[in-house]
């Protein structure tokens, strides 16, 4: 169980702050973990042999564990692509939520010793931890945790995929995707959302930069430590030609070897910090997605309102016989002769219906917009608190890591110094 899991289980921080209502988050009822990873081979959609990794999801009711009976957890295997499917479903179904991100699909920001190979055991292990983190985040989210599809993802091995597709979210997804990719401009952008989007942009940019430089620095640090290992060898050779100095040199050499070896653990721990940053790099994207979706909602409202206004204007013109707006129809009728009063009547009636529908639509869209803004803003506030808390924790553990590294360095060099002084 990761530290995050234990923390979420015991300190539901989500209760503090704005949430006055007590929500039964899934996590309070259930222990979730991604316990293992395994390699599988099989035939894919185009009947080609492929190798992929599956992850074991274990669940167990909280009460059972606290009673001390400790039953065997329920478990099932899932591939990364299934996690992706789950997330896409959540994105479409809860557009106002900042949906927790998945760990990266491919290894990025690697320094030379780290493998970029998806099959590399270290990468798989870090991904396992990331996937567990994802599930725990979803399970502790006030809205997402009560989702049925999410529940069945954790509990129903067979037929889950079909269930997801049955919800028809794909259709919504496709249309939304098209709309989001299109360029549109909102006339009255909501200042708060615009600021949030900008923040998301900046956060993404700065964390990318940080990860890039950190990876380069890790490479260099590795070099510094490893070269000290050469001292070990040369001190050993040198001690062989010395009489009194020999022992001191030899033992100092061993400490230099230990120093060189210590960098592997140091950088492994630092990789964990990099993963924490990466999560928020991807979270920034999720945040921007919410802002973008809000913009779309706003835009659709504006479009509907615009359409209604123009229809109302048309009705007015038709009723009073004046043409204030240019329309091709108007022009053609002018060119090709006036309409008959019956034709005008028919048109007016049609317009009335359209206006009625239009007003309904605007009301609908307005309500949608308001609802979206309300829900989104609640989740954004929740996300902000979570982000501040998590990143602060990450920085603290980073500082603790550095302190530990310094202490180890002091110890090794003190040991070496003692050996030197005995030369």
């Amino acid at each position, binding site marked *: 169980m990761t530290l995050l899991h234990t923390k979420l289980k015991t300190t539901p921080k989500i209760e*503090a702050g704005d949430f006055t209502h007590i929500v039964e988050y899934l996590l309070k009822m259930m222990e979730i973990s991604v316990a293992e990873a395994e390699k599988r081979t099989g035939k894919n959609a185009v009947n080609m042999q492929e190798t992929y990794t599956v992850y074991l999801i274990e669940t167990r009711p909280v009460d059972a564990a606290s009673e001390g009976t400790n039953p065997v957890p329920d478990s099932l295997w899932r591939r990364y692509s299934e996690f992706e499917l789950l997330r896409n479903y959540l994105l479409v179904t809860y557009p106002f939520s900042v949906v927790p991100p998945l760990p990266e699909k491919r290894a990025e920001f690697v320094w030379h010793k780290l493998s970029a190979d998806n099959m590399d055991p270290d990468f798989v292990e870090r991904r396992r931890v990331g996937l567990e983190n994802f599930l725990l985040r979803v399970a502790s989210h006030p809205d997402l945790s009560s989702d049925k599809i999410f529940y069945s993802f954790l509990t129903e091995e067979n037929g889950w995929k079909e269930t997801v597709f049955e919800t028809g979210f794909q259709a919504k997804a496709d249309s939304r995707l098209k709309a989001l990719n299109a360029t549109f401009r909102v006339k009255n952008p909501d200042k708060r959302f615009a600021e949030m989007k900008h*923040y998301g942009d*900046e*956060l993404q940019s*700065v*964390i990318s*930069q*940080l990860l890039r*430089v*950190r990876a*380069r*620095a890790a490479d*260099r*640090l590795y*070099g*510094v430590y490893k*070269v*000290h290992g*050469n*001292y070990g060898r*040369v001190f050993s*050779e*040198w001690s062989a*030609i010395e009489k*009194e*100095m020999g022992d*001191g040199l030899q033992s*100092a050499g061993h400490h230099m070897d230990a120093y060189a070896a210590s960098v592997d653990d140091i950088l492994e721990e630092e990789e964990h910090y990099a993963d924490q940053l990466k999560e928020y790099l991807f979270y920034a994207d999720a945040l921007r997605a919410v802002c973008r979706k809000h913009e779309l909602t706003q835009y659709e409202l504006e479009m509907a309102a615009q359409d209604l206004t123009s229809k109302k204007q048309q009705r007015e013109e038709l009723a009073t016989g004046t043409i204030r707006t240019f329309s091709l129809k108007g022009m053609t009728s002018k060119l090709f002769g006036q309409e008959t009063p019956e034709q005008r009547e028919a048109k007016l009636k049609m317009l009335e219906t359209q206006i009625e529908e239009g007003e309904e639509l605007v009301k609908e869209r307005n309500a949608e917009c308001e609802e979206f803004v309300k829900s989104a803003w609640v989740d954004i506030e929740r996300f902000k608190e979570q982000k*501040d808390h998590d*990143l*602060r924790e990450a*920085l*603290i553990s*980073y*500082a*603790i890591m*550095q*302190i530990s590294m*310094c*202490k180890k*360095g*002091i110890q090794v*060099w*003190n040991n*070496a*110094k003692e050996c*030197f*002084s005995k*030369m």
Partner: protein
Amino acid sequence: MSAMSAGAPRSLASSGQKSIQDILHPLSAEESALNPGSAAEKDLILPNGTPVDTSSPASSSSLLNRLQLDDDLDGETRDLFVTVDDPKKHVSTMETYITYRVCTKTTRTEFDLPEYSVRRRYQDFDWLRNKLEESQPTHLIPPLPEKFVMKGVVDRFSEEFVETRRKALDKFLKRVADHPVLSFNEHFNAFLSAKDLNKRQGLALLTKMGESVKYVTGGYKLRARPVEFAAMGDYLDLFTQKLGTIDRIAQRIIKEQSEFLMELREYGPVYSSWSSFEEDLHDPLEGVSGCVSNCSSALEELTEDMSEDFLPVLREYVLYIESMKNVLKKRDQVQAEYETKLEAVVFREDKKTPVPTDVEKCQDRVECFNADLKADWDRWENNKRQDFRQLLTGMADKNIQYYEKCLAAWESLIPVLQDKQEAEGETS
């Protein structure tokens, strides 16, 4: 020497250290014990029974050398203190150069005054070293820092370069001052005390090392090198190799550290720019940025120290070893000369005449050289051990200091990072 033989026990220590109580201080002799060629030469007998030829300048001093004064004398028994400091730049129409102040404090009667303060430039040190090599060819003369510096690559007038050189020059004079024979050399005396060094004579003899010793004729073939000197040569070869390797490793570490430093200098500011658009996280992020910056400075100091203090000492020893190998070669030559001349005599038909004096002289030269060299070798080994102990301990210290600085920076950051949490804890 007569006073010497009267006051001192007959059997002089030929090797091995003796405690200071058992050894008579050479300056405790009433008369000038250092006067070569004094009357009672015949009284002097080497432990192996052969008479000592005190006519050559080498032998009288070699006697003193055998007293094996311990290096670690406390200040009370030392009577000559030399320091090099206060570098100053001199600009003239012809050239620009640096001079150093050389201060001497002494109770020795060889000096007219108890204190001296003179200014010398590198050329003068170089002159001194050459004179010492000339006049004391059987001894190991400490090295000077490298003479030639590539213009354009290294700034000869930068603070770091001048300071590194000053330290090396200081060490050179101290080693000479601590040497029981070299410290009494007249050229050394002149160097420390004379207003202006009369170097006209010296300049003419500024030749490469190894060529300045006149009496070694060279060209003789050596039969068998004594084991101990062969061992010395072998050791020096291996040791020089190891020093070269260590130099390369140290340079490589400095390079890697410099590159790491470059990345750190970019890394820290990113946290700073992040903090500019955060509210709650502003102080923690800014704090991390500051921390990384402190660590960067500490690393820079470490790298500079290693460049300035560690590498030059290694290189000094490499030069030292080079000059030592030359002395060993000279010794071989002296022995070869003796063996050849002896052989020529042995194969003479008339075996009744006594061994000619020049062959005897050769023999004495060999024995004195060997004795001087052995004594100096022991002294050198001792100094080497101390020097490397100090050098490596210094390296360890510098690294410890670096980590301690970083540790302090990160530890002071923790409360800043935890700050908000404590406040939250109070309000909730």
